[in-house]
């Protein structure tokens, strides 16, 4: 059996309900969910990380969230509320599942920003908001991007489940392939899913490196400020 058969058929690459549309749907779910999660998690995380209050909430939340089965939640939400206009329910469920990793990343990033730098900033007379925007946030960025990265991967994977809950996305290839006993179709779904996940991961890791370089620039011409061992 040629498992690549489905992918190789050009008919599958254009037209409704086929690969390009499904890919876009999947990306749309992912992007929307991550953006919603970030919209909530970033301000909340900054507040918690900057003031230091509520960190217990965050650790409890992330521990609890790991224990939740994503499939059960997706089905529950759809059973209770249907998929909603434009699959908004699905997006929201995905966002809720993406919230813990982003929140944890923002909190640890902001709280973990170079303490000496933050202290100096306060001492120089920066207001709380300035300390956050000029010092804590830039220094927190690398870790935040890492959090976004793992959240994105999680959402890409979970978004596949949407198709099983009457939604769209690459999962459709798995659903249909299973119903039609068409393994090449399922394989196509799996391969595209993997490719999408890897591509997004690489993209975000590149962004993460950029953020890290901005947070801690190290010019190649100046000698490293690390003491050479005697």
């Amino acid at each position, binding site marked *: 059996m040629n498992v690549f058969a489905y992918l190789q058929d050009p008919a599958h690459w254009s037209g409704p309900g086929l690969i390009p549309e499904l890919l876009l749907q999947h990306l749309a779910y992912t992007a929307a969910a991550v953006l919603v999660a970030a919209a909530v998690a970033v301000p909340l995380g900054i507040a918690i990380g900057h003031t230091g209050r509520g960190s217990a909430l965050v650790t409890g939340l992330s521990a609890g969230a790991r224990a939740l089965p994503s499939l059960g939640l997706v089905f529950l939400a759809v059973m209770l509320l249907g998929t909603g206009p434009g699959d908004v329910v699905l997006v929201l469920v995905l966002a809720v599942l993406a919230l813990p990793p982003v929140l944890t990343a923002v909190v640890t990033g902001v709280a973990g920003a170079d303490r000496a730098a933050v202290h100096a900033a306060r001492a120089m007379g920066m207001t709380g908001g300035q300390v956050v925007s000029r010092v804590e946030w830039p220094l927190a960025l690398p870790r935040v991007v890492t959090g976004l990265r793992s959240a994105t991967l999680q959402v890409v994977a979970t978004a596949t489940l949407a198709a099983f809950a009457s939604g769209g996305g690459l999962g459709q290839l798995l659903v249909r392939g299973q119903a039609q006993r068409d393994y090449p179709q399922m394989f196509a779904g799996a391969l595209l899913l993997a490719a999408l996940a890897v591509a997004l991961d690489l993209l975000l890791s590149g962004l993460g490196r950029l953020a890290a370089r901005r947070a801690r620039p190290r010019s190649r011409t100046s000698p490293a400020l690390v*003491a*050479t*061992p*005697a």
Partner: protein
Amino acid sequence: MIEFESVGKTFRDGTAAVVDLSLVVPTGTVTVLVGPAGCGGTTALQMVNRLVEPTSGRILWDGSPLRSRRRTALRRQIGYVAQGGGLFPHRTVVDNIGTVPSLLGWTRSKTRRRALELLDSVGLERGLADRYPAQLGEGQQQRVALARALAADPPVVLMDEPFAAADPAVRRELHTSFLDLQRSTARTVLLVTHDVDEAVALGDQVAVLQADGHLAQVGSPQELLEHPADSFVAGFVGRDRGYRALSFAPASALDLGSVPVVRDAGSAAADRPTLVVDADARPVGWVDPAGPGEVRPLGATFEVESGTLRSALDAALTSPYGLAVGVSAAGGRYAGVATADAILAAVAQARREHRPEPVPVREPAEPQEQQAAGGAHPLTAVPLPDALDDAEDDAEDDGHRADPPGDGHAYAELGDESGQDVDLDVLRPGDETPDPLGADDETAIRETERAGVGR
């Protein structure tokens, strides 16, 4: 005895950490490698227990090359204190200390007994034995690291900045503990530090390394302080080296004078410096002429039998009257006083009597140092005759002599007494023995030296 024979180490990325090091570490003595960051001290140290292998030259232990021994067997015979201690966080203090003994196959009970003994020797309570390193303070951790290195009673001990993390007070205690241990069992010790004071305090022999990995000079601490081979060593050893060298001159050389002594501050006449002591004849302070019954602070004191001229001079400088109060080592009882002038006179006397000790360990240094100095001036490469040595040092003291020694105010008071009431059996300003060479010659010598070495 450990011998470095033209040892060099160049790392894979091209850094030359150690260059052509030839050095002998005599058995049972402490050799300190000192230098600025990057001088290669740690690397040289780690070549002895083969954590690092030399890229050129070889190291011999009692005549046989290190390479001829199996590494693990070698290391079990050499104690090692890593930079930062390197205690195993996952093992208790007692287990840490017992690491090498248990590797050597000692029984558990013997290992534990030995570990507890060592806790005593390094000054830690036995109660800490079953704690984890994270539960100890830094000074305590460093002591445990030291105990661990000594556990199997190794003949050789390597120490890499063992006391670096401690604050000065703790460090002094650690130095004392270390010297006591070394006194009770003389081991061959090689120690790396960046702190010149530590090198001078602990070393029987000090080797100064340059930032590029070359050996600049090796010798006894006193020799380094008094006769630095070149301007690098002089600069590294510090501008206070003249003052530091006073640590080697005993205070017992001083002739002490006396002052009136009272128990009750109110009972003394205010016309001369009078010392107030307690019931055990320990000095408490000076009678304050301004307020009847008031006591002025004592300042520092120096121990007469075991102290050094450095501590005596410090006592003189901190005393309100410029009079150093000497006390007995046992009991701290008042033993007499000395003026700063008397102390400086004693210094001059000591220098006249002092001859540099022959340093057998000073290997073929001459050609080495000449190369290192890059065509050094003949004066620095050849041992100077005593007279010229004195001249250089006296030239520095000229600067000191120009300022009124001690508290000018105090001397004003003494001057007022015109010597009749103050019963001081000491030399006065103006009584110093003149130096053999005139001032002009001294300046000339210094300038040629500076030009010749030119670093």
